């Protein structure tokens, strides 16, 4: 059974704190992604990675950074959390692109910044 796990389901942090969101996949997938979901805005891509130590900016990278030191792990970092980063954060992984490759999502982390 394929698995994408995220370190926390719910998180409450204060403005200015450094926040780490961890994601682990057990499918040996090359590609990993971080999204945030907000009402009316859908799924917005923050960062993605096609290989270890490689990262690419998505549509809304400002205020975020990522780390991929191992193939199975992709971390999202909020250097200094702000209230407008309160959101549902979703990690995903995929083995490749095209019809043969399904994208799997983790359960999400609901982050509240106060």
């Amino acid at each position, binding site marked *: 059974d394929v698995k994408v796990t995220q370190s926390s389901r719910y998180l409450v942090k204060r403005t200015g704190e450094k926040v780490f969101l961890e994601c682990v996949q057990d499918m040996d997938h090359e590609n990993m992604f971080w999204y945030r979901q907000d009402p009316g805005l859908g*799924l917005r891509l923050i960062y993605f990675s*096609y290989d270890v130590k490689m990262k690419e900016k998505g549509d809304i990278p400002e205020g975020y950074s990522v780390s991929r030191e191992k193939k199975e792990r992709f971390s999202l970092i909020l250097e200094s959390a702000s209230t407008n980063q309160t959101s549902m954060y979703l990690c995903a992984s995929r083995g490749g692109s095209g*019809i043969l490759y399904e*994208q799997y999502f983790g359960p999400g982390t609901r982050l509240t910044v106060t």
Partner: protein
Amino acid sequence: DQQVKQNSPSLSVQEGRISILNCDYTNSMFDYFLWYKKYPAEGPTFLISISSIKDKNEDGRFTVFLNKSAKHLSLHIVPSQPGDSAVYFCAADASGNTPLVFGKGTRLSVIA
């Protein structure tokens, strides 16, 4: 500039009737399309997909139709059930290892 558009933010359907969710795209390089379903406080789960070489794909109660000339696809759910109430995301894939492009989603409510 949205490449994948779901123009209906919400849809309400009676149990047992057909639900039709629509999706339009602008990029002719997309060659594979997917639908995901998302319940509150959970991650999206894959529902059904279609390749651009087909115009229909069916899986149980779910059917996806693709009209390439109109750059339009639709998801039909027949019969609709209360458990189908969720947000549905349309996504498109272009060959070449680029990320999936998602629409903003349609919230489906199936009323018993």
